[in-house]
């Protein structure tokens, strides 16, 4: 009896979590797959199976490759830079200094703000005509007339990426901070006795020990950023002419502005496959390294 319980015990421990995700995530995902293979009317009613028609339509659309490219640039830039900057910030905040508590609370701010509001504020700051950045710089005497901070679609996209980095840094910082907390001081003391300098300690102790928590948070970060919607939607809605669209804003327009929910579902399945492949490669390579 006891042995039998031992066998099923782990499954009882994970059961609540499995149930939660199965009901509220897996079933809706199944529905997306079904929609991606269905003909759907503009009002959103399913009118039967249509094979790969939606995928064909989406992949043949001239804007799709541009949107995909944007998505990759967006994800790589936001995740890469926010991981780097967030890591540095965590190292800084891990020092003992007066006011550390305040500094840590301040760093939480961008995270504690709803993304839509955060993005609205940024839109407000960089606006050419009434933006506060121009006003501030003019008052400080740094510039003498309003600068157009967003002369091209590329400039807009760069600002959106900056905003994305700004709101993602706290997430990385606190993940790293919690990892740093669990490093035994003894390692550093031993290294100091051995005559290691700051950078040697950084690369030989800190980074290897923080890496496990950073690996997972980076994978999740890639997923969250890839699927991030509010920043781009609030600042440009993908304008002009899809130049700043990512897959998510693009499919949102397809689904809710153009009444093409089948196409939108197909786009999200494609996005999922891309993420799935990338994440699998990344995880496998990282886990392999970990085993060596």
């Amino acid at each position, binding site marked *: 009896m006891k042995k039998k319980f031992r066998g099923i015990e*782990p499954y009882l421990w994970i059961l*609540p*979590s499995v149930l939660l995700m199965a*009901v509220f*995530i897996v079933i809706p995902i199944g529905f997306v797959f079904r929609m991606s293979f269905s003909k759907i009317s503009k009002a959103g009613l399913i009118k039967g199976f249509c094979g790969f028609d939606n995928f064909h339509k989406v992949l043949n659309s001239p804007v799709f490759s541009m949107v995909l490219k944007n998505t990759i640039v967006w994800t790589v830039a936001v995740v890469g830079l926010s991981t780097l900057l967030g890591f540095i910030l965590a190292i800084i905040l891990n020092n003992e200094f007066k006011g550390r508590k305040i500094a840590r609370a*301040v760093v939480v701010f961008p995270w504690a703000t709803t993304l839509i509001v955060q993005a609205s504020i940024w839109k407000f700051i960089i606006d050419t005509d*009434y933006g506060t950045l121009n006003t501030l710089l003019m008052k400080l005497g740094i510039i003498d007339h309003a600068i157009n901070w967003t002369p091209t679609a590329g400039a807009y996209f760069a600002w959106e990426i900056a905003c994305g980095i700004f709101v993602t840094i706290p997430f990385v910082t606190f993940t790293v901070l*919690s990892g740093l907390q669990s490093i035994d001081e003894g390692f550093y003391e031993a290294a100091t006795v051995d005559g290691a300098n700051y950078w040697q300690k950084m690369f030989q102790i800190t980074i290897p020990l923080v890496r496990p928590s950073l690996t997972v*948070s980076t994978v999740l970060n890639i997923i969250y950023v890839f699927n991030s919607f509010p920043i781009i939607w609030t600042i440009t809605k993908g304008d002009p002419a899809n130049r700043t669209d990512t897959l998510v804003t693009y499919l949102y327009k397809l689904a809710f502005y153009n009444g093409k929910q089948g196409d939108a579902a197909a786009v999200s399945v494609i996005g999922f496959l891309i993420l799935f492949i990338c994440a699998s490669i990344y995880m496998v390579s990282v886990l392999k390294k970990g085993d060596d």
Partner: protein
Amino acid sequence: MEHTKSNKKIVSRIFLYLVVIIICLITLYPYFVTICTALKSRAEIFSTSGTVFPIHAIWSNLIDVWSRAPMASYMRNSILIAGGSTLLAMLCGIPAAYALSRMKFKGQTAFLGFVIVSQMFAPVVLLIGIYKVMMSLHLTNSIVGLIFINAAFNQAFAIWLLRGTFMSISSEMEQAATIDGCNRIQALIKILLPVAAPGIVTALIFVFINAWNEYTVALTLISTDTFKPLTVGINIFNGYNMIEWQYLFAASLYAIVPVVILFVGIEKNLVGGLTSGGVKG
């Protein structure tokens, strides 16, 4: 020799403070803008001769938002949703992470992979399916429904982070406690959780903030004003004829307060929770 060393120390100290101050200034700049805008009239916000500080600070804007919209009710709903989601996410996530770090079973890796894969669709994409599930459970237009959704969407981070934290903690003390007659649940609560506080606090903050800021699902599920959270509720200032920036920004300032209070309250657990307990090398 001694002298230069302490000089060097002072310089690096000053440098540290400088960096921290610059980071804080950059981080706070958008909030400075928010506050200033919240105190301006719309005419001043868009005036040709832009101002940094409001010329006539309209302090009443900060009070008016409470009567222009049922802010108190929005705030209460947000706290219920975020608090409930955090609690539920932890109640499901901690046991799962415990099993993953302390037991060996078939399908362990598959489960870990499944947890990640479950995150790969944006909630925006899943709206229609989520609504369908909620309809069959009679949880549309209900705070409980939002708690389930937010808890589910935050399982991945909670489980992975907690699993990592638990694995970095040696199981020797729990084993000793088991010999002393504790069962697994007691060992988990009495021995492991206190030691794992930094990881738990990080997961807690993460889930709370995500649930606090969730927008799209709440928007489609909630149909009456009484159950709207802040994120959806403050949309009242974002109309077809006009966007009332001053109120929108004033309301969003209030929205930050509970999160910062929560953070400051539990921040000390982020530091030094690991003074006791063996750390695996």
